[in-house]
């Protein structure tokens, strides 16, 4: 039946038909994008730093893993809904504030503890800044030239954006950007390791592969990176070529690991802005009333979405009383379960739940 329908359908001329899969399409487009950007950035490949070509290959391998992981993830029914509606609601008044709080200042981690916030800020911003320096250098989007002796031109995407004295503040910050971020990351990772060794709660849950491996990789990347500077400045470049290969190896391993372990939360975290917008927007539109106690507990849209997702997963929670379990507020849903156990309709007794917080 389906095959018949497909035959009768008119062939749709869409760019999507040109690719075997979403993966192939994403890979092709992003490699093309990188190629074009590099073409522009390096002024038609006249300023390529071939010393960094290993990172270029590493990045493309990373993209393979990244798309594999994230396309599979995006196909899950709840994820699909969240991404689709999140993009639709992207331009809300509160989006800039939410984005800054969730992705830049990590306010929610502050609420989990100041120590944890500090370590996350150091590692997070250390990595972000390092990426902002490394990738433009690798793909030739940023490079330096010197016309006059003692004056550097900073070239971004083929455009000369500023000329700075070679021993000035900006120039020194640029030379040392990766050293500064390395120190930030090392400090952050040390704080994390200290917490993971000392804190009993962390010790109960952590696993080597999930919690320690990414930390060890970040530490290796930062230390070998700093070692490069050290060898250049104090050892007359002794052993620098070997160290540069070791550093390259650590960075590429980290990149390949990234989509599959704990670090996968980096590219994935912007979803929390989608989720916040989703809850705010549909919460303003209409709220769902609990079928038992009539308190408004969630937006109608989210309630419907969750019911749909459960149906897609073949989970049916329709009750004899004529409601779906997702239509009850949380306390009523718990009391309804007690009612199912005992045979007495606990959820219909108008008494607020109490003494649930183990505070005596």
């Amino acid at each position, binding site marked *: 039946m389906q095959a018949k329908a497909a035959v009768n359908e008119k062939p749709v001329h869409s760019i999507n038909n040109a690719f075997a899969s979403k993966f192939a399409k994403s890979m092709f487009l992003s490699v093309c994008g990188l190629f074009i950007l590099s073409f522009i950035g390096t002024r038609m490949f006249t300023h390529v730093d071939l010393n960094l070509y290993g990172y270029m290959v590493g990045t493309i391998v990373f993209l393979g893993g990244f798309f594999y992981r994230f396309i599979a993830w995006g196909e899950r029914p709840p994820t699909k809904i969240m991404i689709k509606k999140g993009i639709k609601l992207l331009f809300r008044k509160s989006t800039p504030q939410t984005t800054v709080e969730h992705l830049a200042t990590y306010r929610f981690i502050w609420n989990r503890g100041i120590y944890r916030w500090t370590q996350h800020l150091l590692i997070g911003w250390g990595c972000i800044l390092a990426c902002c320096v490394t990738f433009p250098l690798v793909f030739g989007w940023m490079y330096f030239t010197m016309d006059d002796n003692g004056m550097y031109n900073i070239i971004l995407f083929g455009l000369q954006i500023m000329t700075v004295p070679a021993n000035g503040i900006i120039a020194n910050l640029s030379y040392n950007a990766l050293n500064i971020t390395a120190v930030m990351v090392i400090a952050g990772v040390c704080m994390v390791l200290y917490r993971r060794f000392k804190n009993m709660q962390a010790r109960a849950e952590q696993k080597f592969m999930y919690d320690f491996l990414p930390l060890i990789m970040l530490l290796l990347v930062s230390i070998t990176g700093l070692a490069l500077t050290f060898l250049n400045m104090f050892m007359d470049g002794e052993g620098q070529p070997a160290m540069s290969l070791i550093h390259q190896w650590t960075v590429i391993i980290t990149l390949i690991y990234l989509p599959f372990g704990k670090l996968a939360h980096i590219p994935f975290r912007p979803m929390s802005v989608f989720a916040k917008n989703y809850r705010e927007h549909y919460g303003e539109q209409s709220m769902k009333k609990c079928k038992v106690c009539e308190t408004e507990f*969630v937006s109608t849209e989210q309630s419907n979405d969750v019911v749909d997702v459960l149906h897609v*997963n073949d*989970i049916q929670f329709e009750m004899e009383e004529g409601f779906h379990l997702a239509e009850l507020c949380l306390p009523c849903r718990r009391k309804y379960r007690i009612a199912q*156990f005992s045979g007495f309709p606990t959820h219909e007794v108008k008494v607020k739940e109490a003494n649930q917080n183990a505070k005596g």
Partner: protein
Amino acid sequence: MTKKRLYLELENCIGCRSCLAACTQCGGHEERNRNYVYDVNPLVNRQTMPLMCLHCVNPACARSCPAQAIQIHETGAVLSALVEKCIGCQNCTIACPYGIPKFDTEQNLMYKCDLCIDRTKDGIPPMCASVCPSNTLQWLTDEEIENKKQQFNLDNGKWVTSMALEGETNVKVNLPGILQGVTKLF
């Protein structure tokens, strides 16, 4: 090591809330309890029953999570949200048939019973079961649960538990014999 399960004999509950207090002390729970104790008929009598995550075999919370933050441990325990993955959408709280997951708005994080995974993965009973003074919460092997089943057979070919849950769960629940009119011998 034989696999053990959490097994609830609901009618034994005396409402002491030891399980709530014990839950706060589990590693990773940050001194907040993740289980509940309810009065069955609060204005009439003192019968209480505990309620905690029943660790569904096909958990609705994990199915509805857009972030894959709720992982299922190899022992079958449905774990609390991974702190770095949870995006705070609260789909899990809406999906859970028993209303178990709790949400911390400040931390933008869901937390739920993880069956004290640091203990149970090594065969040690979860905090709640290890403190329960009335044998409401027990930590038993499948064989022992099978024996209980026969002890409370209701003569209708069904073990009453199966009627009250939405799907197969890793935690086994026994319905109160008192309310079913079945005399229970301790």
